[in-house]
């Protein structure tokens, strides 16, 4: 268990965060952009739990932070999908390049 240092878990979450960032930059579809955001939120959760386990094992604060992040991510995904469905009704498309009314 303790053979894996904390840094390796941090490398994993860093790579996951930047994979999510790559997806957010390259995708033009709102649903896939939402998926990339979920990946980034998950990498943050891994960091919180790993720091709590390795550096402060006598406390539980990291676990609570990841619990609240999971809750807020669920609410955020639900609102985002409601907005996506509404956008699809008015534009017949969920591509960000097609919703340009407010673009300067």
């Amino acid at each position, binding site marked *: 268990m*303790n*053979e*894996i*240092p904390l*840094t*390796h878990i*941090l490398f*994993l979450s*860093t*790579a*996951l965060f*930047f*994979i*999510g*960032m*790559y*997806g957010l*930059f*390259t*995708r*033009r*579809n709102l*649903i*896939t952009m*939402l*998926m990339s955001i*979920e*990946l980034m939120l*998950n990498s943050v*959760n*891994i960091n919180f*739990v*790993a720091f709590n*386990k*390795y*550096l402060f*094992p006598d*406390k*539980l*604060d990291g*676990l*609570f932070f*990841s619990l*609240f992040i*999971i*809750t*807020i*991510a*669920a*609410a955020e*995904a*639900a*609102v985002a*999908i*409601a907005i*996506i*469905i*509404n956008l*699809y009704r008015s534009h017949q498309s*969920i591509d960000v390049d097609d919703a340009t009314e407010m673009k300067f």
Partner: protein
Amino acid sequence: MNTSTIIFYTIAVLILGAALLAVTTLKIFRSAIWLLFSLVGIAALYFWMQVEFIAAIQIVVYVGGIVILIIFSIFLTQQSGKEMAKPTASKIIFSALAAILGTAFTYNLINHYGFNSVSAQPFNTNVSEIGTQMLSTTAHGFILPFEVVSMLLLAAMVGCIVIAMKPNTGTIVHLNKKED
């Protein structure tokens, strides 16, 4: 190289490979399924770190909730078998460059700092411990964020219904008539 180490690297490869495929595949339904695999891998990582409660929450909320929601919205908004447009080459190159440079920078930072872990204390993550601390009103309790987050969930639920509701009320009147 014992079993625990091998399991960790296997889980890491699963998470990163599924995440990479989720952001690069051109079919949106496959992308959702790869996201599902990545989230299951993260739950496995929590099991490996022996925080079973977070792992269970991860499976229930992400795998059972958010991914299902995403798949339903894919069905509602577009043809799932159709391929999406490929991003332009310059966009791929610059995004990959930004991601790789960011990863390298953070890797360097973490490697320099080191994080020597202090204690070999056992990590007590009983569900009873978590529940007691979450609802306690003392200095280290989390009752206030708990209540605030419940208000947030209620507001999100009402907001979703209002946003996604159809503007005309004709169907509702029709249904009511049918019941009579």
